[in-house]
């Protein structure tokens, strides 16, 4: 696809995904933006380098750093704060974080599984564990990144609920008041929950992807508005930031190959 603002420049699918991730953080202000994964990290850095300059971000380990570049050698880190793992709960439990997690399974209401596939007591596939997903989702806004959109990931109901979705939150009443599953970004499109029953809605398809392709790759009925827009392309300034400043090694292209 070509960017209308930059004649002749080819924008890759991975770059569209980076912009879609960045958009997840729009309006968040001075909180800990915690995107996990290669493209999420690039997208988060892009948001901070452009329209959300107050975001705080980790190095993936024990510090918050100010660098724009996504992969930065330890000696080159511009450290703002010492943030050992234990500090993370202070941000999470006080409501000052927006995490973008991965999801081995995600369902219609945004429930997420990264613990085990199959019967929990004797799983067919043991994964990571519940990790911090229950605590992340009940305390703070959460979004998800799925680089391999397919019916085994987008399932009618997850096998084990780790991150809680809108239906579980509604059943909790006031105890679920901080739950906010914001977006799901995949290699095919962007999804939100802006529907009367908070079920997943197709918000945009990435350029080159059809609505039918998304429907076929999704294991439940998505809410599909009339006239689904295309995910927006990076501006020339954003494209330069991604390519020259944030991810000059093009790690993004290895996570989502161009089509």
């Amino acid at each position, binding site marked *: 696809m070509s960017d209308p603002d930059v004649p002749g420049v080819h924008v890759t699918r991975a770059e569209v995904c980076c912009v879609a991730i960045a958009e997840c953080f729009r309006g968040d202000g001075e909180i800990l933006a915690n995107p996990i994964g290669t493209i999420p990290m690039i997208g988060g850095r892009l948001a901070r380098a452009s329209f959300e300059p107050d975001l705080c971000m980790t190095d993936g380990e024990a510090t918050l750093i100010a660098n724009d570049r996504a992969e930065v050698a330890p000696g080159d880190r511009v450290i703002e704060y010492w943030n050992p793992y234990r500090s993370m709960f202070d941000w999470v439990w006080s409501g000052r974080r927006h995490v973008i997690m991965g999801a081995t399974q995600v369902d219609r209401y945004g429930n997420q599984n990264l613990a085990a596939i199959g019967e929990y007591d004797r799983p*067919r596939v043991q994964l990571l*564990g519940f990790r911090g997903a229950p605590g992340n989702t009940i305390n703070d806004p959460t979004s998800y990144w799925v680089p391999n959109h397919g019916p085994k990931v987008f399932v009618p109901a997850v096998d084990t609920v780790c991150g809680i979705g809108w239906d579980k939150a509604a*059943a*909790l009443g006031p105890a679920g008041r901080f739950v906010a599953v914001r977006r799901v970004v995949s290699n095919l499109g962007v999804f939100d929950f802006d529907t009367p029953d908070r079920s997943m809605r197709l918000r945009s398809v990435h350029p080159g992807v059809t609505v039918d392709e998304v429907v076929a790759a999704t294991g439940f009925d998505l809410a599909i508005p009339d006239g689904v827009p295309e995910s927006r392309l990076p501006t020339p300034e954003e494209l330069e930031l991604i390519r020259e400043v944030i991810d000059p090694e093009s790690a993004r292209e290895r996570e989502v190959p161009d089509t």
Partner: protein
Amino acid sequence: MTEEDVVARLRSGMTIAIGGWASRRKPMSLVRAIARSDLADLTIVTHGGPDLGLLCAAGKVRRAVYAFVSLDSVPLEPHFRAARQSGAIEDEPYDEGQFHLALQAAAWRVPFLPTRVGLGSDLLARNPRLTTFTAPVGDPPEELVAVPAFELDAALCHLNRADERGNAAYLGPDLYWDDLMLQAAPTGGRFVSAERIVATSDLAAEANLQQLRISRMMVDGVVEAPGGAHFTLCDPDYPRDEAVQRAYVAAARSPEAWAEFRAEWVDIPEAEYQRKVREAAA
């Protein structure tokens, strides 16, 4: 003390917390000694990495108490996965924040600490130790999760520097939960291995004040174990040995592969293990 001295203080059926985080600063020389011992039916409490995986492969684990198990550069722990998928071990899952509260509750000698973490998720169904209660304070009263204190028998941690009496310092970016694990375990069961034992008078020169986070009041015995965290990362003393970690991962392919790894890297005295590591690096 030696690794074997520590093992002699442990018993089958014990609940043992292991410090470090994933494949970082794990007390692996102690873990290897447990794997070689007659101990059995252990409950392992851990931010899990190859400590839990190796003990699963060695058949030492009755129950895993954890929020995640990972090898960092290899996202999923193959030996732990095999144990779960074959039904060989019992499972007691937590959220990472709940895990923190369970240690803190034990250290403070209260039966539980409250949180809303876990509500709505399947944790409450999968871990029957987690229950809900109505908060006695607040209007309207809120339903919360009671995270019960861990009931530890022992805790094992690896630090960068220690003195003979058990004062110790970490020199990397993160203490993880080592101090809380040692505080949560009962007197008599708290052991630290260290890269180097130094004179007490040298501790403040070896580490910043803020890194002197383990007090001898938390520790019952110290093992000098240079390379004791190998093959996990022990910042800044050495990086993770990815080659040996890869061999460990490959050993999950079959019982024969595990037997081969075990003979090469587990069923040998610690001094020989460290000699092999040095030779491989040379």
